[in-house]
């Protein structure tokens, strides 16, 4: 599976309060969370982001709280994939469990906002379309892609049972 989208670049240690501030956690509706996605890092992000766009972060992306609202907000905002050199442990697991694809790429710092990026989950190859430069990372195995396409772990299990 391949995706293509515009890059939105963020820095190191993007914490879960930046991804979705706790003041919005009195409601877990994905549409509500999407409206406030990344609000304290970039107040206009939710308005500017288009379906299929890609978030690129620095090291330790998603540190802090265990709130699953963080990957839910990013996914509901239309983001197709998050790429970073490293992810915080709980966020990593929550992302796949809620159907958000994420990729660890140690050279993610070479990407910048506005780049157009093509991502091949099967080969783990990133292509910076303007420059033609490629980056390699680990592929997402077919069952994990299926999990993402199903919308997360629980829908994936339901699909397999039926």
């Amino acid at each position, binding site marked *: 599976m391949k995706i293509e989208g515009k890059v939105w670049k963020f820095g190191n240690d993007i914490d879960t309060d930046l991804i979705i501030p706790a*003041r919005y956690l009195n409601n*877990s509706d994905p549409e509500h969370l999407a409206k406030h996605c990344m609000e304290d890092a970039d107040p206009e992000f939710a308005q500017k982001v288009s379906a299929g766009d890609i978030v690129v972060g620095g090291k330790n992306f998603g540190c802090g709280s265990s709130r699953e609202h963080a990957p839910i907000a990013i996914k509901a905002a239309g983001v197709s994939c998050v790429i970073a050199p490293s992810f915080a442990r709980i966020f990593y697991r929550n992302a796949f469990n809620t159907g958000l694809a994420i990729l660890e790429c140690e050279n993610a710092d070479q990407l910048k906002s506005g780049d157009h990026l093509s991502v091949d989950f099967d080969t783990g190859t990133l292509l910076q379309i303007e420059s033609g430069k490629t980056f390699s990372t680990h592929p997402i195995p077919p069952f994990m892609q299926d999990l993402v396409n199903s919308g997360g772990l629980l829908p994936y299990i339901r699909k397999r049972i039926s």
Partner: protein
Amino acid sequence: MGMTITEKILAAHAGGDRVVPGELINARVDIALANDITAPIAIRGFESVGATKVYDRERVVLIPDHFTPAKDIDSAMQVKILREFAQKHELTHYYEGGEAGVEHALLPEKGIVGPGDLVIGADSHTCTYGGLGAFATGVGSTDLGAAMVTGEVWLKVPESMKFIFKGELNPWVEGKDLILYTIGDIGVDGALYRSMEFVGEAVTGMEMAGRLCMCNMAIEAGAKNGIIAPDKITQAYVSGRALREYTFYESDPDAAYVTVKEYDVSTIEPQVAFPHLPENTRGISEVGDVPLDQAVIGSCTNGRIEDLRVAAKILKDRRAAKNVRLIIIPATPAIYRAAMDEGLFEIFMDAGAIISPPTCGPCLGGHMGILAKGERAVATTNRNFVGRMGHPESEVYLSNPAVAAASAVAGKLAGPNQI
């Protein structure tokens, strides 16, 4: 090759004799915990797979503590989901109203968690229970929802890091300062995916409050868990309190560690973490002139009776500066009552403090003391991220209770020796 305490607990819960770092295990869960923010999604997941029964009604624990007493209609709706689920499934451990407390203070206090347990919680500070010698880690709502059905969780066995704290603590230095100092040294991802094991005489000489506080903030270095081997002090704390049988584990002398760090605590002064990451630590003598608008003493990190006693020592016969709102939040009803019985409330009220009911409240910018644009707070909480306690342009400085109390009096960041 021997095993670490973390590996031993994981092995015992995976039904084997040994595990090695990197190994994937399916482990039995002693306690599965969620709160009013994370439980609604876990319950939605639980019901979406067609589950009708929790794996054990005494082991699935729901604590509404984040936005409680409900701060608005949406928060009340979330708590209602927990309440109805707890009633329907006849959960033993559901605490609301006058029984409600901050989850990571309440569970050890009530003996719901104990040494040797494997605990998962849909809250990142679940790692607090490592202070009792348990393996405890934070997970998301989906993993928690699945464990509510099966009583199991899959885990990757973490590599262990050993932190040795030698020497004697300086006055006003406590567990909070040691963990802040450590995070300042290794960074907010310095223990990513790993286990942090705390040893040495400065740790073994510490009461349970300090141990729980140190393990509480292991997540702020990215760790999977923090842990301290149980001993006589642990025994004294859990006896007459533990609701289930417990087991003391300890690391073998030849256990393997990826890193061993040694600190001489006699060189460590009270620490303050500057905005906007817990790793931005400075000694209290190096903080400079930082005027404050608010001081918060409470939370799952420092809302225990020992913390309130320290604050009272500083605040006795003193007053918070006119420009500082001092908010004190006993973490559980039992702590609240003890503080009242010991006369601490009188000291706090004479100091001009607001005494809040038990709640996570301002720690995560929920309620009970939200910061306006440009305001600054010193807090005994665990995170100082952008917007953590309110407006995105506000600031949070993390400290121990003595520094927070002294700063409230001084009206700016200050140590107990500066007032």
